[in-house]
């Protein structure tokens, strides 16, 4: 099998049925046949990873290969050619392009001969196989000077120049095509499906057995205390849903804002039950509209629709600091007894929470913006850190279906923890003992992450 692993790509690979012939020639005992075939299977699996031998080209011109880049929108072409033995730091490669095979070639890139290797590609092994240090790679993309058009054939040539000689490759052609799937994201899809399945199974199990232990989250336990305190003091409860909007996948604040509105529903119900006053200033009109509906529903659910005021939710400004100034003014004038800072925040987090702290209000914050967490932790009485914000809905409602998702998340975290420990041990042992296969294992592992 080692003969296979060491096979140079320049040699002719073994034909089907050659394995049987090899066994006969080597006169392997029957009891070793299983081991032999197991080795064969593993060898074939690892062939793309470790199998390609050094292919340094001592001959004349670069042996250029052009191909459509996998998993893209049809806007780039890949070029690769083996390293030449005459390369030096002063030598350069020049890549030229033409729309016709016999037409004039336009230079599109020039770079030092000791740069641009296959190992620079960030794609995973199941798309790229083994990435080699002895093969140059260059990705041709549209620039301001020229534009690659989809499904159009282009011709390429690479010229090697070291000052004394200039070697031109053969002219090769390729056309960029749009792909339907980006196979490089297969790992991401696999993990999503596995995690989604874990969550759904956890929910199903929670329906059967609803008694799942939930650790205490002091910030959520304190909601009752905060609203009660505001009622006793006759001061309002201030609730902020953060600076986020329901902006879709490109908006990092969307989920935190949804979580904040869900908690608002519970807080509003308690406020209505106790007969306190709720103030909810907003930065985003759509969030305001959703919150108006949720607060109204909460007052109905608490049996106090008569105490609901339309101006409980109000818009201030979409501008970050205009909003901050207005809320700071509100805190200083009305002196709410309880301040809730839930959702996604930016630089205004400290300006808001510190102003609240100076008025002596009980403050509860919750955010997944990790850069703002230190500010909330130093200025608030309780802080929901990261995922605790998302867990609030399940924690407050105790609905088995929602609690089941928390169990699913914990299983996901446990698996990730194990993966990280194994990966850390693998890379550490690989570095200490310089064992190549451990490094290869880590590379496979790293691509799957």
């Amino acid at each position: 099998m080692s003969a296979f692993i060491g096979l140079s790509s320049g040699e002719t690979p073994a034909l089907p049925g050659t394995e049987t012939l090899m066994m006969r020639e080597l006169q392997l005992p029957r009891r070793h046949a299983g081991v032999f075939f197991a080795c064969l299977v593993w060898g074939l699996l690892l062939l793309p990873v470790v199998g390609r031998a050094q292919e340094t080209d001592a001959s004349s011109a670069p042996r250029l290969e052009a191909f459509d880049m996998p998993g893209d929108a049809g806007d780039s072409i890949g070029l690769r050619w083996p390293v030449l033995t005459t390369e030096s730091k002063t030598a350069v490669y020049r890549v030229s392009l033409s729309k016709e095979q016999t037409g004039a070639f336009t230079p599109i890139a020039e770079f030092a001969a000791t740069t641009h290797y296959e190992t620079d590609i960030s794609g995973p092994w199941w798309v790229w196989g083994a990435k080699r240090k002895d093969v140059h790679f260059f990705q041709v993309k549209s620039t301001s000077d020229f534009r690659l058009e989809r499904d159009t054939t282009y011709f390429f040539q690479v010229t090697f120049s070291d000052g004394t000689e200039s070697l031109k490759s053969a002219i090769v052609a390729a056309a960029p095509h749009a792909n339907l799937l980006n196979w490089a994201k297969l790992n991401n899809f696999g993990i999503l499906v596995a995690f989604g399945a874990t969550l759904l199974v956890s929910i199903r199990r929670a329906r059967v057995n609803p008694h799942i232990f939930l650790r205490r989250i002091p910030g959520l336990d304190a909601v009752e205390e905060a609203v009660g305190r505001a009622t006793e003091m006759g001061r309002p409860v201030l609730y902020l849903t953060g600076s986020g909007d329901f902006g879709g996948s490109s908006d990092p604040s969307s989920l935190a804002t949804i979580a904040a509105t869900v908690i608002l529903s519970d807080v509003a119900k308690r406020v209505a039950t106790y007969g306190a006053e709720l103030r909810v200033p907003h930065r985003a009109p759509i969030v305001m509209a959703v919150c108006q509906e949720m607060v109204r529903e909460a007052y109905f659910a608490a049996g106090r629709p008569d105490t609901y005021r339309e101006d409980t939710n109000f818009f201030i400004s979409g501008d970050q600091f205009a909003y901050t100034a207005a809320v700071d003014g509100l805190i200083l004038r009305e002196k709410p007894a309880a301040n809730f800072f839930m959702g996604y925040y930016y630089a205004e987090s400290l300006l808001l929470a510190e102003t609240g702290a100076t008025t002596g209000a009980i403050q509860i914050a919750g955010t997944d913006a990790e850069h703002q967490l230190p500010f909330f932790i130093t200025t608030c009485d309780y802080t929901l850190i990261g995922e605790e914000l998302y867990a609030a809905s399940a924690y407050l409602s105790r609905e088995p279906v929602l609690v089941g998702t928390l169990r699913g998340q914990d299983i996901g975290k446990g698996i990730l923890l194990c993966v990280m420990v194994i990966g850390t041990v693998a890379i550490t042992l690989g570095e200490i003992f310089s064992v190549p296969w451990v490094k290869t294992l880590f590379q496979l592992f790293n691509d799957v992450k």
Partner: protein
Amino acid sequence: MLFWKRTFPLLLTLLLGITFTAQYYVPHPASESLLTEVSVWGQIISGFAILLGVGSLIRSHYVKIKRREAGWGYSGVMFLSMLIMLGAGFWSGGKTEGTSFGWLYSYVFVALQGTMFSLLAFFVASAAYRAFRARTPEATVLLVAAILVMWGRVPLGEHLISGIGSVTEWIMNVPNTAAQRGILIGVSLGGIATSIKIIFGIERSYLGKD
């Protein structure tokens, strides 16, 4: 009625949720243009939503003035500022270069924003003072770490204690990054779980109760 209020939004969420999850894995230009199209729809909806916001703003401040609530004068200032800005905007035809609208934006609005932002320095100082009082072991660790980081980040620190910069870098790159990544992992899993709950209609409290 219940169909339009409950079932239809849930179906729409399921359909769009699955479509745009799949879109992430499809690099084809048709997939990209679908995303762009929906983003444009989002911008149009946001544009109309501003009317909602302005309506709410005018209503709440009008009520304050009408009831002569505490600080109603500020509501008057708000209306005056809004009218001046709107008037200048229409007068300048929406252009900012060399117009009264541009002047108001650059020398009033941006200056006010800068003033608010600069307040952060004082707020950081007062928050740090409260947090760094070494009353508990955790606060003491925070205090020591903060002193080391601050010391290593100023040129004088490295001049007085050689190598303090490396200590600072280690604190920022190892324990600090580890803690941040720990939080990020939890947030990411929580985010995926929340998305799945919303897409499949398991979490529906944002629609109000049944």
